C-alpha cells in the first residue's frame, strides 16, 4: 500500500548508539523548533548525489559552500525567475535538501532582471569563461602555497632578518582561515556560471521537446555534447602513457601485478623505464589530481586522489596497454561523436517549422557554449580545488597530531571547522607561551564518542525523502541535476514495487545483460571484470578507465546530466541512473538486464551463487 507522505523530519528517530549526533554539526544546519512550522510543510529529499554517506563534522564545509553560493546566485545575483536556492538540513548525519521556489508573483519581475543580468553573461560567455579560469587557477595556486607544518621550537632566522614581523603560530591560524575562505570563495565562482549555464542547456531541451514530443533525452544531449572538453584530459593522459610504455618497450615490465611503488622503483633502473616514470610524475600534477569519490567528486576527505593512490590510474594504464596489445583502438571516438552530433542536429533541424529554425540555431549554439563549462568546471573545482583543500587539511591534521593537539591525524575530521579553529588557537597559544594546551586531553572524549556515533549513523538507512510530496516537481534544477521527478517520488512512496525490478532514469540507450558488480569505493574498481554491470552510488570521472571494461552502469543517483549518463553515452553503453537503491538492493554476481531505453533494471537470476557464467539469452 502506498503512503501519501514521507515521515516528518521531526519524527525521525536517532539510531541506537548515535545519541547526541547533533553536536557533530552546526546548529543552523539542523531541524529545530524555531523553524518547525516552515520545515514540516516542505518536501525534503536525501541528497545522495553530492553526499551519499554520513558526513564527518569537518566535511560539513562542503555542504555549506554550495548551500550559500548556489542560493546567492539564484536568489540574489541573477534573479533566476522560478527558483531561489536549495535549503539544507542534516538528519542523522545525512544531508537532506529542498529547492525553494520563487513566489509566483515575483517571477515576471525577476525575469526582467534575469534577462539583463544573465543576458550580459550569455553575450560574453567565452570571454567571461576565460576570465573565470584565470580566477580559479589563481585560487588554486593560493591554497597550494599554504603550508601546515608542526610549529618549530625556534622560528627560522628569516623571521628576524627579513623583518617578517609575525610568527609561525599566527600563520597557522591565518592560513587555516585562508584555506577555508579560499575554498569558499571558489564556490562563489562555481555558481557564477553554473546555473545560468544549466538554464541555457535546459532551454534547448525544452525547445526540442516542444517540437518533438517523442525525442529522447539522449538525442538532445548528443546534439550538445561531444566537445573536446578538458574533463577527459586525465583519461587521455592515461592512454598517452600506455602508448608511451609501448613505444619505450615496457609492455612486459608493466604487465605484472606489482603495486605502483615497487613497479616504479624497478623501472627507474634503466633509461627507458626512468623516462616513463618521469613522464608519469610530470603528468601527475595536475592531471592526476582527481578525486575518487563515488558521486560528486571531492565531497569527502576520505577518498584518495589518483596522485595519492597511483595504483588506481596504473590499473587503467595496464588495461589500456592490454587493449593496445590486442590491436584495439583506445582513442575516444571524438570525431565520430562530433560527426554524429552534427548529423542528428541537421536531421532534427530539417523537420522544424521554418519560423523555429533561427531560434533552434541560436539555442543549440548557446547550449554548446555553456556545455564546455558545465563539464569542465568539475575538473577545476570538484577535482583540483577540493583535492587540494583535502590534501592541505590532511597536512594540517598531521601537524596538529605531531604537536599533540590531537592523538592522530584522522581525529581532526571529527571536529567541526569552528572547533578546528579553536584547537589551532589552543595549540598555537600554548606553543607561543611555552605552556601546555588543553589539547588532546580535552578533545579525546568528544572525538572518541563521535567516532562511535559516526559508526552508528552509517548503519542507518535514510528514507529517500521527508515530509509531504509536492503534487508536481518542476523546479528545473531538481529535475535536471538530481533526476528527481514527480514519478520518482511516487515510486519512492510505493511501499511494494515489482519484485526484482528497479526503475530509474534512462541515462544511455541500449539493452544488455550481465553479472552485477557492486562498487562503493574506488579501491574495489580493480575487481571489476570485463562484461560486468557496474552498480554504484554514482560514478566519478576518475573511474573513467573502468568504462572500457563494463557492459552497463546502474547508479543510485543522478539524472541525464550526471557523469554516469554522459560517459555511458560516450562509450555507447546502456545506463540506468537515479534508481535510488540499486546498491542496497542488488548483489555482486546476480545477473541483471539493464534497459537503458526505458530505465528499467531487471534481476534475471536472483541467486548470486549460480551466476558469473557466460552470456545468457533474453527469454
Amino acid at each position: 500500500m502506498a503512503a501519501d507522505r514521507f515521515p516528518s523530519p521531526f519524527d525521525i528517530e536517532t539510531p541506537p548508539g548515535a545519541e547526541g549526533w547533533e553536536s557533530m554539526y552546526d546548529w543552523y544546519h539542523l531541524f529545530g523548533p524555531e523553524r518547525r512550522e516552515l520545515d514540516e510543510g516542505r518536501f525534503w529529499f536525501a541528497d545522495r548525489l553530492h553526499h551519499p554517506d554520513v558526513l564527518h563534522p569537518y566535511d560539513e564545509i562542503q555542504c555549506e559552500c554550495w548551500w550559500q553560493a548556489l542560493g546567492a546566485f539564484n536568489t540574489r545575483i541573477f534573479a533566476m525567475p522560478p527558483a531561489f536556492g536549495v535549503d539544507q538540513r542534516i538528519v542523522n548525519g545525512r544531508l537532506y535538501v529542498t529547492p525553494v521556489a520563487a513566489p509566483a508573483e515575483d517571477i515576471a519581475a525577476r525575469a526582467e532582471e534575469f534577462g539583463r543580468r544573465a543576458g550580459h553573461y550569455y553575450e560574453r560567455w567565452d570571454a567571461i569563461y576565460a576570465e573565470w579560469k584565470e580566477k580559479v587557477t589563481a585560487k588554486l595556486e593560493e591554497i597550494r602555497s599554504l603550508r601546515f607544518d608542526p610549529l618549530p621550537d625556534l622560528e627560522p632566522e628569516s623571521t628576524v632578518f627579513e623583518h617578517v614581523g609575525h610568527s609561525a603560530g599566527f600563520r597557522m591560524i591565518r592560513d587555516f582561515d585562508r584555506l577555508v575562505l579560499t575554498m569558499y570563495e571558489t564556490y562563489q565562482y562555481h555558481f557564477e556560471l553554473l546555473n545560468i549555464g544549466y538554464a541555457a542547456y535546459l532551454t534547448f531541451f525544452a525547445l526540442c521537446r516542444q517540437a518533438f514530443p517523442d525525442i529522447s533525452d539522449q538525442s538532445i544531449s548528443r546534439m550538445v555534447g561531444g566537445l573536446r572538453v578538458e574533463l577527459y584530459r586525465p583519461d587521455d593522459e592515461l592512454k598517452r602513457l600506455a602508448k608511451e610504455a609501448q613505444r619505450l618497450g615496457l609492455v612486459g615490465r608493466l604487465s605484472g601485478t606489482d603495486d605502483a611503488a615497487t613497479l616504479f622503483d624497478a623501472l627507474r633502473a634503466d633509461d627507458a623505464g626512468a623516462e616513463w616514470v618521469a613522464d608519469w610524475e610530470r603528468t601527475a600534477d595536475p592531471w592526476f589530481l582527481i578525486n575518487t569519490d563515488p558521486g560528486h567528486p571531492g565531497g569527502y576527505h576520505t577518498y584518495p586522489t589518483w596522485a595519492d593512490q597511483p595504483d588506481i590510474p596504473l590499473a587503467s594504464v595496464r588495461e589500456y596497454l592490454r587493449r593496445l596489445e590486442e590491436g584495439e583502438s583506445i582513442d575516444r571516438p571524438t570525431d565520430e561523436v562530433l560527426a554524429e552530433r552534427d548529423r542528428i542536429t541537421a536531421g532534427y533541424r530539417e523537420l522544424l517549422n521554418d519560423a523555429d529554425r533561427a531560434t533552434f540555431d541560436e539555442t543549440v549554439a548557446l547550449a554548446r557554449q555553456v556545455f564546455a563549462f558545465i563539464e569542465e568546471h568539475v575538473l577545476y573545482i570538484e577535482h583540483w580545488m577540493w583535492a587540494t583543500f583535502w590534501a592541505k587539511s590532511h597536512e594540517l591534521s598531521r601537524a596538529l597530531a605531531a604537536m599533540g593537539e590531537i592523538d592522530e591525524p584522522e581525529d581532526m575530521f571529527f571536529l567541526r571547522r569552528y572547533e578546528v579553529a579553536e584547537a589551532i588557537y589552543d595549540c598555537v597559544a600554548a606553543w607561543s607561551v611555552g605552556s601546555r594546551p588543553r589539547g588532546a586531553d580535552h578533545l579525546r572524549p568528544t572525538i572518541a564518542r563521535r567516532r562511535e556515533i559516526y559508526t552508528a549513523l552509517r548503519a542507518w538507512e535514510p528514507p529517500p525523502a521527508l515530509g509531504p510530496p509536492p503534487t508536481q516537481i518542476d523546479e528545473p534544477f531538481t529535475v535536471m541535476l538530481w533526476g528527481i521527478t514527480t514519478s520518482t517520488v511516487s515510486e519512492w512512496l510505493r511501499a511494494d514495487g515489482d519484485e526484482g525490478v528497479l526503475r530509474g532514469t534512462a541515462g544511455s540507450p541500449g539493452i544488455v545483460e550481465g553479472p552485477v558488480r557492486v562498487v562503493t569505493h574506488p579501491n574495489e574498481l580493480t575487481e571489476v571484470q570485463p562484461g560486468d554491470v557496474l552498480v554504484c552510488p554514482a560514478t566519478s570521472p576518475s573511474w573513467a578507465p573502468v568504462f572500457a571494461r563494463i557492459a552497463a552502469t546502474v547508479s543510485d543517483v543522478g539524472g541525464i546530466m550526471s557523469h554516469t549518463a554522459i560517459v555511458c553515452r560516450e562509450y555507447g553503453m546502456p545506463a540506468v541512473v537515479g534508481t535510488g537503491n540499486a546498491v542496497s538492493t542488488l548483489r555482486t554476481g546476480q545477473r541483471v538486464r539493464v534497459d537503458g531505453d526505458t530505465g528499467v533494471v531487471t534481476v534475471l537470476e536472483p541467486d548470486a551463487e549460480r551466476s558469473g557464467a557466460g552470456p545468457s539469452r533474453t527469454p
Partner: protein
Amino acid sequence: MSGAWILGLPDPASADVAAVGGKGAGLHRLVALGARVPAGFVVTTDAFRAALGDTGDVEAPLRDLPPDAPIDAVERAAAQARARLLRSTSTGPVLDAVRTAYDGLAGGIVRVAVRSSAVGEDAAGASFAGEHDTFLELRGRDAVADAVCRCWASLYTARAVSYREHAGAGPAGAMAVVVQEMVPARAAGVFMTLNPANGDRSTVVCEAVWGLGEPLVSGTVTPDRFVIDKISGEVVRREVASKERCLLRDPEHPGTHETDVPAERREQPCLDDAELAEILELARRVERDAGVPQDGEFAVADPGGPARVHLLQTRPETVWSTRAPRAATDGARSALSAVLATLTRGTSAARPIHEGTPDHGG
C-alpha cells in the same frame, strides 16, 4: 487511344495513375526506389474499360437516385450496378490476359493478393482506406480472374458510393486492379512517418501483429506499438500488446484462417530491433521521396529478419501532413528570450511526455 491491359510493377508505364490507379502507381514508385515489394502486375484501367466494352451505362441505376435517397435504396441501386458490371465483364479476352499474367508469376502456383486500385484513391487529402475490395491468399488462374471482376464491381458497393459522395469525388471512374504474390507473413503491420498522436515528425510509429496484417488494418486486434526516432534510430517506446489471435494463410487450401497465437508468443514483441531498423529505413526513404509524411503497410516474410521486410503499399498521411510542423517556440527569436520563456513557463516541457506508458522518471 487504348494502352496495355497488363503492366508489370517495374514497367515505367506503371507510373501513370490514370492507367494503374493510386495503389498501382504507389507500388511502382516503391519498386523504383529499390524497396522490396512482392512481385506482381497491374490490370490497368484500360483493361477495365475494354472489359466493359459497349455494355453501356452501368452507373445508370445510381444516377437516377434522388440526392437524399435512403440507404436501402442506395444499396439496391449499387447492387444493380454491380450485377450489370459482372455480367458484362466475366468473360472475354481481358480476363484471359489476366490468367496469362498470373501464369507468369512463379509458374502460376503462387498465392496472390488481388487489390483494387481506383483512380483517385490514396491521394493526399482522401485515403479511401478500405472502401474497395481486397482478396487474399488466392491460387489459380480462374480464382484470380474472378477476384479481378469482383474488384471492379466493388466500385459500386454502397459504402464506396457513399464515401465518394462524402469526399466529393463524383462518379466512379475506372478501376485498376493489383495482383501481387502473397508474402507468407510471420508478422505484418503499418507504419506512419509521424506520430499521429501528437504530430511529432521526428518519429516513425509502427504497429504490428503476428501473421497477416489485415486484422490490424481492420482494427479487430490490438497491435504491438513501436515509436522509433527517425534521426537517431532509437526505439523510444515499445508497447507490447497481448496478441491472442492472428490471421494466417491456410496451409491446405487457398485462403486464410484465424487461429490462436501460441501462448509463448502472445506477449513477445512481433518485430525485433533489426526488423524495426529496416522498417525505419524504408519509411524514411519513402517519405523523403514523396516529400510529405507517409503511411504504409508492410509484411515480414517467414522466418523473419530485416531482409524479409516487404512493403505492401504506402500513401500520403492525410491528417497531419496538411498542417505545418509543430511550433517549438512562442515566437522567441533570440536564445535569451527562449531561456526566459522556458524559465517562466515552468519546466514540464523539459521533461519526457510518456504517452500510455508508465513514466520511469526519465
